[in-house]
């Protein structure tokens, strides 16, 4: 008699556990699903059913983000566990396991279940994006648990585009692997020029160590390729976390093929108003000496808006550099930064550089002021380089009902640099004036959109110059056709010889664009060369065809070179305003393609 209560209790616990397990998984079936670990999403189509204990969602197209455990189901409806009482919906958004969902019909919310259930944006990769990976899976159904583990049913794995051994069940994603030690294959590449590359990752989580590493093994000798025969490219970082905070960080990277490595040990922390970071770096490669450098940085936080900093770096008995900066910000209107840096290097050559800099910015209601001053002195050659810049842009003025905008900016540039044994300097004040219009009406229905910029510089380096930049666009609209001519000219008045010279900035181009209510949109643009001969042609067109098909094309053609830079021609069809299928040719991809998109 004593065994019966135990058996009943065990059965009860087993049923509860199974029930709990069932509650924490989501079962999704349909005609076709595809998953790639690089995309981290599942795409499915055809009689999709998403169900758990209390819910059943039906639809035609599914996008499911494995990382966030969020899905969007198109063209279906949601209902309870049985088929009765279902409501039609265009889009169902569901998230979490067990799912909270929100579904809409004609853009309006029909029903929600669970807290926080709402509409969200989800990336919609194309089928090509899935199939563009070395490994992907096609299957007929899958389970997702609360950790995001995806167990697929009736699976065909594809390796390098080729189907391999079908399996009844297979875990295509292991779910949230945070805080676990893992070693996995990230990618497999083969190119005829570079050989085979296997990209693997190691995630380390062994208390008190945490790290991430990338290890790429490459093989060239097997394919009789020149260069380094084989080797490993590795990089990663390892952190020591004895408690919550990080005690030490180790960053490493290297290439066994060229026998090089780089190791950096660093520690950063903050003690009251003092923030610091120290690091020690070792770097070596075949044929060179070991490079070892200590770096330190101290930042003080005495009050808001002021952060004086001191940086230091030292290469044992060879080089030393230090830097002081004092950034000060007062009420986001005034910014002042004074700094100096000294670098002394003796690494096969001698160098001693000193740099002083000052930056000052100020903003007011009518204008702003930006200025910078820098002196760089070579302490060995006793030559220096000086730069000073100042500009005062005034706020734009609008005229004639915001049709014309005027901007005005005075500026000043000073530059002094060593040239041979002497130094050259230039002191160049100048002004910049710009006027642009949204459009001026002319006879015959023409609209002129001019833009004019004047830039005068009293140039201490060369000679005084006045630059004019003129941009003109002449537009005429006839029904659905818009014809436009555009031209840009840069001209320069030189005081020497009192003459004006000019060059094209934007060559003459003629554009014709046709749009109609039936959805046709054709745009042809011809860009002329300097001799007014056609040079480049761009074409962008969309035409609606019978059976709700649409022909789209995009072409860049170099007329003078008699070659296409790019060609994209494809036909697309939209199903139920949601699903778009594209098929055509791309010269940029150098192949024919078929894409499945959601619009």
């Amino acid at each position, binding site marked *: 008699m004593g065994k019966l209560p135990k058996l009943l209790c065990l059965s009860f616990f087993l049923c509860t556990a199974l029930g709990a397990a069932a509650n924490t998984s989501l079962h999704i079936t349909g005609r076709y699903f595809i998953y790639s670990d690089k995309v981290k999403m599942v795409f499915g189509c055809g009689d999709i059913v998403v169900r758990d204990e209390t819910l059943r969602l039906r639809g035609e197209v599914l996008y499911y983000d494995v990382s966030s455990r969020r899905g969007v189901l198109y063209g279906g409806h949601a209902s309870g566990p049985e088929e009765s009482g279902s409501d039609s919906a265009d889009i169902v958004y569901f998230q979490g396991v067990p799912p909270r969902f929100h579904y809409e019909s004609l853009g309006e919310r029909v029903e929600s279940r669970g807290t926080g259930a709402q509409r969200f944006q989800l990336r919609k990769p194309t089928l090509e994006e899935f199939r563009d990976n070395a490994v992907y899976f096609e299957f007929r159904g899958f389970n997702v648990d609360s950790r995001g583990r995806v167990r697929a049913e009736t699976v065909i794995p594809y390796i390098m585009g080729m189907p391999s051994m079908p399996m009844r069940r297979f875990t295509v994603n292991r779910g949230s692997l945070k805080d676990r030690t893992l070693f996995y294959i990230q*990618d497999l*590449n083969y*190119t005829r*020029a570079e050989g085979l*590359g296997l990209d693997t990752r190691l995630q380390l989580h062994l208390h008190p160590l945490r790290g991430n590493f990338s290890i*790429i093994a*490459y093989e060239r000798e097997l394919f009789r390729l020149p260069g380094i025969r084989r080797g490993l*490219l590795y*990089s990663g970082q390892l952190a020591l976390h004895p408690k919550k905070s990080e005690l030490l960080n180790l960053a490493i990277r*290297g*290439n066994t093929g*060229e026998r*090089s490595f*780089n190791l950096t040990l660093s520690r950063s922390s903050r003690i009251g108003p003092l923030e610091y970071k120290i690091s020690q770096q070792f*770097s070596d490669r*075949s*044929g*060179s000496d070991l*490079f070892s450098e200590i770096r330190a940085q101290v930042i003080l936080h005495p009050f808001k808006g002021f952060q004086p900093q001191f940086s230091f770096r030292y290469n044992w008995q060879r080089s030393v550099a230090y830097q002081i900066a004092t950034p000060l910000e007062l009420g986001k209107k005034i910014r002042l930064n004074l700094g100096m840096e000294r*670098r002394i290097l003796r690494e*096969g*050559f001698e160098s001693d*550089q000193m*740099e002083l800099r000052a930056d000052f910015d100020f903003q007011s209601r009518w204008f702003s002021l930006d200025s*910078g001053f*820098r002196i*760089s002195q*070579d302490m060995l050659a006793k030559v220096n380089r000086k*730069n000073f810049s100042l500009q005062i842009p005034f706020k734009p003025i609008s005229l004639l009902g915001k049709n014309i905008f005027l901007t005005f900016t005075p500026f000043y*540039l000073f530059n002094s*640099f060593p040239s041979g044994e002497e130094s050259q300097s230039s002191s160049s004040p100048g002004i910049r004036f710009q006027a642009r219009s949204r459009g001026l009406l002319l006879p015959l229905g023409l609209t002129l959109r001019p833009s004019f910029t*004047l830039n005068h510089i009293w140039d201490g380096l*060369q000679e005084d110059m*006045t630059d*004019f930049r*003129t941009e003109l666009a002449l537009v005429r609209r006839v029904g659905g056709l818009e014809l436009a001519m555009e031209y840009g*000219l*840069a*001209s320069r008045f030189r005081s020497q*010889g009192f*003459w*004006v*010279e*000019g*060059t*094209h*900035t*934007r*060559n*003459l181009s003629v554009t014709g664009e046709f749009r109609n209510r039936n959805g046709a949109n054709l745009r042809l643009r011809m*860009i002329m*060369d*300097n001799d007014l001969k056609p*040079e*480049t042609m*761009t074409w962008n067109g969309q035409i609606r065809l019978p059976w709700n098909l649409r022909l789209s094309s995009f072409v*860049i053609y170099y007329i003078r070179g008699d070659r296409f*830079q*790019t060609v994209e021609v494809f036909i697309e069809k939209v199903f139920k305003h949601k699903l778009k299928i594209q098929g055509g040719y791309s010269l*940029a991809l150098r192949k024919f393609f078929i894409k499945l998109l959601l619009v």
Partner: protein
Amino acid sequence: MTSILVVSALAAVSIFNGCRDVVFNNPLDPNASRANLTIQRVFATLLSGPGDICFDGEKIWKAGAEGRTSAFDMESGTAIRSFHLIPATGIAFLERRLYLCGEENQVLVYDPLSGSLITRISTSEVYPRLLAARETDLLLFDSRSESVFSLNPETRELQRLFQLSGLATGGMEFVEGSVLISDSASDTLYRLTYDGAVIDVYRSPLGGTAGICKDDRGYIYLMGLDGQVAKVTLP
């Protein structure tokens, strides 16, 4: 105002008279404009921010400090390809490989077709910030010593060429036996010999020149921090 009218009138005349690189010039001194850097074309891209550029034979690659390396068409500025690689400031294209460097003491070599890492070149005490491809080797600007080095990617041999301190270096390119380096603080381009002597100094047409490269026809491309690209010729 008079000068504006004169310029506008001359611009209009030039368009109808047919265009040349230099549209109108001083008839008494037709080569006067050749003393300066001449703008050929300006176009916009959607790739802004710091990071040098390089030419691979048909398009221009831009290194991104945020980690994205992209290629764009050199006529229209349209983005053609993009990879998420490493946060990089320097980039060079040499013998079908893409070389990238950030602020660490290494140069990473990538396959420009697949974006996969091919190898890693350790540079020990040299911290490359900028790269430029010469005929068979690379030039690199070391941020630690503020010097220009040459690096042989096959033998890994590093050789110091000259020191260049005090510049806010934006981009670097090898141009006909000399080095072209931009100083984004003073919007100036310096053309230097391999021993660091200044050959020429040019005023950059862009504010904040972030990158420089040269195409196979000898045109120089300057890229600004705002994503604008100016195609120019040197005197």
